[in-house]
């Protein structure tokens, strides 16, 4: 047991394990956060960070192991239970009411009561001001939350936790959406919280920030504890070393034949700003598979949305095959040969209750239709051809898409887009939630698309995948390309570039 400063830890996890459908997400993890400590949790995607946070906050129940608060065993089954122990989780999507004032939000659900069952607004305002002052913040308790910038909203959420007497704050990537100067402000607030004896556990991918601001850090790898030490006794290199360790599996096809070095640029971005992109410049060439790597908040999430016109471009230029790309909406992008395959198949792309055939043909219906009527024989032919080429299983065009496995759903989306014969493919987290076997097939398919002369951009937070598949890698930070790497470099190099 860890007893720093002779005190019982504010919160301590002992032997936590959790499996999801046979896959071990967390295995015998021990860690603790001391009172008066800011503790950073680090690890690659799938390392088990979220699972750990969710168990501590009562959202998920562990299969085995226990959680102690101030040295006492707890029975945490729901977020409400966790709150009773003074644990409060602050999610990435804040739970604030935008149309209410800061004070109303701070005390929502626990409003101070005055006479006649009415809210004592004056007390609410005064106590909110006191809490915010304790946090060193100047936010007006009477301001509407929707008028506050995101960094202030986060502080309101922390104030809300304090109003409910929280002693342990769990923050899921609180800094991902913040500018560096605002990160500092957040940490000043967390510092005040810590100085009052509070304990904070937070997930971050930004190593520089962790070394500057956190007291202690814990690294998870593949669901296991890889390292835990005070930041002052650790180093960037040691943390990256602890994060690495997964082996490159033999599921990646052979790299391209070097066409990309000479191929013409198919899609170019020149100083493009929009969404979280800040003057991003890049090009992807004929026959090239370009990997985009970065952490949350690096701008890589918004990159595809800007390219296809889902987010407005505020500056810069996009070109496809040398011609300016004029996008106003995803349909426009599609017409000009740019295809976006989304990561959230169910929500953004696939029509769950339509059959495979309809899902594949839906983007090309118009081109093939006569006076609005679908040309069914032609549709069938294309669909069957694609089902065969992509080896969608079962090869049944009438099967409802929701009944397909994740990998086959992804293939169906791919088939839809192949049907439009595009020049540029953008894959966003192409293998998230897909089993290894289907992964290999999707990788092979992506390679074939490239070999056929199209250009592929793959955006992925799975560094193994980027390293194993891409011909060239662009590491993004703060909305722009920070570093260019060749495919197949050391994982260490890539992590160093993005973190």
């Amino acid at each position, binding site marked *: 047991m860890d007893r720093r400063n002779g005190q019982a830890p504010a919160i301590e996890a002992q032997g936590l394990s959790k499996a999801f459908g046979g896959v071990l997400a967390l295995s015998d993890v021990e860690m603790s956060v001391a009172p008066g400590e800011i503790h950073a949790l680090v690890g690659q995607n799938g390392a088990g960070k979220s699972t750990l946070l969710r168990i501590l906050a009562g959202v998920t129940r562990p299969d085995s192991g226990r959680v102690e608060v101030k040295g006492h065993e707890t029975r945490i089954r729901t977020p409400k239970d966790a709150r009773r122990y003074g644990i409060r989780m602050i999610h990435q999507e804040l*739970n604030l*009411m935008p*149309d209410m004032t800061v004070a109303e939000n701070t005390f929502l659900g626990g409003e101070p009561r005055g006479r006649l069952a009415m809210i004592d607004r004056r007390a609410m305002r005064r106590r909110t001001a006191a809490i915010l002052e304790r946090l060193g913040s100047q936010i007006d308790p009477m301001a509407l939350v929707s008028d506050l910038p995101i960094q202030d909203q986060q502080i309101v959420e922390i104030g809300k936790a304090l109003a409910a007497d929280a002693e342990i704050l769990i923050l899921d990537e609180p800094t991902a959406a913040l500018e560096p100067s605002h990160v500092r402000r957040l940490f000043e607030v967390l510092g005040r919280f810590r100085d009052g004896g509070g304990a904070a556990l937070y997930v971050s991918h930004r190593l520089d920030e962790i070394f500057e601001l956190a007291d202690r850090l814990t690294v998870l790898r593949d669901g296991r504890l890889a390292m835990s030490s005070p930041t002052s006794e650790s180093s960037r290199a040691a943390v990256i070393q602890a994060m690495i360790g997964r082996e490159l599996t033999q599921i990646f096809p052979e790299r391209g034949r070097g066409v990309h070095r000479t191929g013409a640029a198919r899609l170019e971005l020149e100083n493009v700003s929009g969404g979280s992109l800040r003057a991003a410049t890049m090009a992807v060439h004929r026959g090239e598979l370009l990997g985009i790597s970065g952490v949350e908040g690096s701008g890589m999430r918004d990159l595809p949305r800007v390219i296809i016109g889902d987010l407005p471009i505020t500056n810069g230029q996009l070109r496809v095959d040398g011609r300016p790309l*004029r996008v106003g909406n995803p349909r426009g992008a599609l017409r000009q040969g740019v295809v976006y395959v989304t990561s959230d198949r169910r929500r953004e792309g696939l029509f769950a209750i339509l059959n495979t055939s309809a899902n594949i043909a839906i983007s090309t219906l118009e081109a093939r239709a006569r006076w609005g009527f679908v040309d069914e024989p032609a549709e069938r032919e294309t669909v069957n051809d694609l089902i065969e080429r992509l080896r969608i299983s079962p090869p049944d065009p009438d099967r409802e898409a929701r009944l397909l496995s994740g990998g086959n759903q992804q293939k169906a989306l791919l088939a839809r887009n192949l049907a439009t014969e595009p020049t540029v493919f953008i894959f966003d987290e192409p293998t998230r939630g897909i089993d290894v076997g289907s992964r290999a097939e999707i990788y092979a398919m992506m390679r074939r698309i490239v070999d056929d002369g199209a250009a592929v951009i793959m955006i992925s937070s799975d560094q193994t995948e980027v390293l194993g598949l891409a011909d060239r890698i662009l590491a993004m930070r703060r909305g722009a390309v920070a570093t260019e790497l060749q495919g197949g470099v050391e994982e260490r190099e890539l992590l160093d570039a993005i973190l």
Partner: protein
Amino acid sequence: MGAGLSLAQRGTGALARHRDVVLVFSMFALVVVVASLSLSGFTSVYNVEGMLGASLPLALAAIGQTVVVLTGGIDLSIGSVMSLTAVVGALYIDGENSRLLTGILICVGLGAAIGLVNGLVVTFFRVNPVIATLGTLSIGQGLALTATEVPGGSTSPTLREVVYGHVAGVPAPVFVLVVAFAVAYVVLRRTRFGLHVYALGGDEEGARLSEIRTDLVKTSVYVISGACAGLGGLLLLARLGVGDPVAGQFYLLLTVVAIGLGGIYLFGGRGSVIGTLGGVAILAVLGNALNAADIGAYEQDMIYGLLVIGILAIGSPILRRRIREWSAAVKPADAGTAGAARAGESGPG
């Protein structure tokens, strides 16, 4: 266009925060000016008192609808509850002042009971409010017509005075309106329940995470709406003198128009009941003016139908977003042809 745009943008000043209320009362002033200029006798004491009395049933019903819509729901049964309680009240009271008090209790209780059914169906069985209240709409209407197919029963002298009488020289409806809206305002703005109503409409999941008993709040708003409609039915009886089993049906649409005009956001969480008062006032004047201008009941139906569609289209956040995007797209590139072309594409939407 420019003025409308700046009003539609979010601001921090007090005026901007209450812009919907300011807007609805400006519209009210405009309607009043137009009506008094174009219709003779519009401003006569007789006519003004008539409008005040006529607005009462709608005022009560619209307050109930406001509370429900603020949580993100809707109560379609309001009109048929009004018909039902008007009929039940008329048949029970039947001209006797001595039965007025119990009659009021029966009508409010009946409305609240139907509201409770709505609330439980919505919370317990997770039925969409549109469907749940559509069901009780039909049940309520059926019950009213079962009770009497033709207008029957009658109001009592005291009940009649609520609409047509005076207290200290001031028309009685003024007091009813002031009390009703004051109570609604205080409950919505000054009590925990009221705050939770707004929270529920703003973000149900967030409200639940803040340990608000969302199902209790949700059930309560339908009970309140039912009780309000019950009172509204009684006021309808007071105005018409008899219990008409179909008189309430027009009020459903009118409540939606009133709250729409009043700036109550139809997806919940935003709006003030004072805006609803403005909406009710506009409809009282408009109804009076349309009658004075000799426009028939069927034409009026069409006008209100157009109004509700128009309000929803103008108030739609999608329209506002399109306008915002459009102006954002035009501004940085107003010299460039690409910007102009883009604006042209998404403009008319």
